């Protein structure tokens, strides 16, 4: 066989290596906001155990004692998160949420590399909304902010954030003071660090927690029926 003919089997082998490499690197790798250690798929799943426990300080939509919880790490300037917000809202409006079977927990994962201007400020603003108006105000603020956000740092937050605060009935003076205080900066960073520690590679990054404590990673914006499938699977704990 001529040397040239060896190129084809070689090409097939290398293509196989590329595919295997893709699985391997994906299993161990992370995105831009992430660490660079070598990790197996098992280790990657074990990272989920680094998730900070859900407490009363979390922003929870639905039954706080729901057997299944979906913890989402999100960024207000991320267009994928904007779409995921709509999808998760539909999930929560369905029997899954209404029956108290599922609770949705929102945490922050502002990606400075992509959205250096707005993401953290919007996260802080949402915390101020929660401080002044409670859990309901947080969710109203988050939903409305996602509605008005142009994403990818194109949102004019000097106009939009005060507008949302006004629309949901917050005290504008107190809100402005809170927003400028920097009191939630550390909390936002803590959420972001925790997202990275759990293996988050980008937003939206979600962890579904089963009644038996098993955790399932969910990366990106998945369709409603896939999320419901995962909830069904989690409810069985398999």
């Amino acid at each position: 066989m001529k040397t040239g003919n060896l190129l084809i089997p070689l090409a097939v082998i290398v293509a196989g290596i590329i595919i295997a490499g893709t699985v391997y690197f994906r299993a161990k790798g992370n995105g831009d906001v992430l660490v660079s250690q070598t990790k197996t798929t098992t280790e990657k799943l074990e990272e989920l155990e680094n998730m900070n426990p859900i407490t009363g300080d979390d922003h929870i939509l639905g039954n706080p004692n729901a057997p299944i919880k979906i913890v989402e790490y999100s960024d207000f300037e991320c267009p994928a998160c904007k779409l995921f917000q709509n999808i998760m809202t539909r999930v929560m409006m369905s029997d899954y949420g209404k029956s108290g079977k599922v609770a949705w927990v929102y945490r922050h994962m502002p990606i400075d590399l992509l959205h250096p201007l707005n993401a953290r400020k919007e996260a802080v603003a949402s915390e101020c909304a929660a401080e002044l108006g409670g859990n309901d105000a947080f969710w109203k603020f988050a939903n409305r902010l996602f509605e008005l956000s142009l994403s990818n740092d194109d949102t004019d937050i000097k106009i939009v954030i005060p507008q949302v605060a006004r629309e949901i009935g917050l005290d504008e003076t107190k809100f402005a003071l809170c927003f400028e205080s920097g009191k939630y900066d550390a909390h936002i960073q803590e959420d972001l660090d925790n997202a990275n520690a759990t293996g988050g590679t980008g937003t939206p990054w979600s962890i579904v927690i089963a009644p038996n404590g098993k955790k399932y990673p969910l990366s990106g914006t998945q369709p409603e029926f896939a999320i419901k499938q995962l909830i069904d699977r989690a409810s069985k704990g398999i």
Partner: protein
Amino acid sequence: MVLRAFKKVFHKPAYVAIGTMTSLTAFVFAVWLPNIGLVVDVLFSSGSLSERFGLPLSLLGSISTNFSIISEFYIIATAVLFGMNLAMIIYFFKRRSVGFSRVGATTGLAGTASGALGIGCVACGSGPILITAILVSVGAGTLTQFLPFKGQEFSVAGIIFLTASIYLTARQIESPAVCKF
């Protein structure tokens, strides 16, 4: 010439099957890639077949939610071209045992590699998944963000290489097998 080669190869059901299966495999793999850990965990878990395959199958729906329109195009185009390319190369080798172009093989390989490197989902910060993971492993994970199209250049290159490889393979299928002095 290319069309004649297509007709030769793809009027045989076996090669249609090879091309289709390869394309489907590449497509499914690309769509699962952002959640490959979860997919592997579920597929190899306990439970009935429907429990093991239900979630992975439903995740295929993320082609419409987790990828931008341009990424969807790249994934589908790369998968289809990869399947066609492989089927044509196999056809060529079944017919002839010698003489496949080094250029054609290299171009096909480059197309596959580049296309795989360019797969990326719309999730913010993820970028093209494989190239980002490789760059992260060498401590340069943010590099793709500085490219004009955030790493999607690899997808375009992949489509160009695969198309060129198909063209070169078609030309060889159509060229007569002659012994040269």
